[in-house]
């Protein structure tokens, strides 16, 4: 059975949403909440760092979360090639931890922006986007005050050259991000961070189910029993 760990920091507030989205797409019981004090994530197939305000976003967004014991395990798993997805605050944490390049700064207009925006998938070559054709536009919610992606020009050029921009704002740039970047991946491509919230868009009744494609991608990537329709049905039946 596939196991996806959703990391919970003090101040995380999208952990349950993320776990529910994982369960809804990959099968009930797939997601496990992992407290920040955990020191091991052995046996985990994928990791999600959820949105929120870890440690109150004191000092800088995500700056203190990187010292949590669990981040050592996240780093170790990332180095082993385990797929890691940082959503919103999770993206900020991954940047502060140096697992992704760049930084997320205060939106250029200074407002917290809560909206649903079109984003274009710029690369299918990650565990989290492989079920999505590059160039496809997704409708995804955003909710952040500090989402302005910044990196120096050399880093931005390198990201573009290596197709490491994973998602890009397709409409108006909602926060002033450099080159409209909404999400990037690591050089090894298994660590992805993005400001939009795919976990808030996994059913039509949520306004959009485009976010489910990110988790479908993970299922495709892991390609194990979780893709067996009988197993998913069984898990669904057990959940009922």
């Amino acid at each position, binding site marked *: 059975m596939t196991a996806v760990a959703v990391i919970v920091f003090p101040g995380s507030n999208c952990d349950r949403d993320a776990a529910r989205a994982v369960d809804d797409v990959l099968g009930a019981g797939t997601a496990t909440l992992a407290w920040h004090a955990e020191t091991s994530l052995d046996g985990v197939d994928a990791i999600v760092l959820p949105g929120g305000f870890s440690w109150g976003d004191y*000092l800088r967004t995500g700056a203190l979360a990187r010292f949590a014991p669990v981040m050592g395990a996240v780093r170790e798993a990332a180095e082993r090639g385990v797929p890691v997805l940082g959503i919103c605050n999770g993206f900020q944490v991954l940047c*502060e931890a140096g697992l992704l390049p760049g930084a997320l700064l*205060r939106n250029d*207009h200074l407002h917290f922006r809560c909206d649903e925006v079109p984003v274009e998938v710029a690369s299918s070559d990650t565990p989290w986007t492989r079920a999505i054709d590059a160039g496809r536009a997704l409708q995804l919610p955003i909710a952040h005050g500090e989402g302005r992606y*910044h990196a120096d020009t050399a880093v931005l050029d390198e990201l573009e050259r290596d197709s490491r921009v994973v998602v890009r704002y397709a409409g108006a740039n909602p926060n002033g991000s450099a080159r409209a970047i909404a999400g990037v991946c690591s050089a090894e491509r298994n660590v992805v961070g993005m400001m939009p919230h795919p976990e808030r868009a996994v059913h039509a009744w949520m306004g959009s189910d485009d976010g489910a494609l990110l988790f479908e991608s993970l299922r495709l990537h892991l390609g194990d029993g979780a893709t067996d329709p009988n197993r998913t049905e069984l898990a669904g039946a057990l959940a009922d």
Partner: protein
Amino acid sequence: MIGVRIRTMPKRAVLDPQGEAVVRGLRALGHDVVRDARVGRVVELVLDVEDEAAAREAADRMCAELLVNDVVEYGEVELIDASSVVVGAGA
């Protein structure tokens, strides 16, 4: 005890919308002389170290490890009187 003041500022190349808002606010109040503003952060620490060299060395390491994100900021370390940080700390 030695006090250190660490001033962190956004790099010049980084857009500082808070600074721009401060400029607009001050100009709206009639301060037409204001041309530019940058908003940073100040952290003051009291260190239990032997001498100023040790204080600087410790503060520099703290900047690199946590207090300053050199992707977007730079930091400046200044030694100050510890009692100006916490009353009684200078003793």
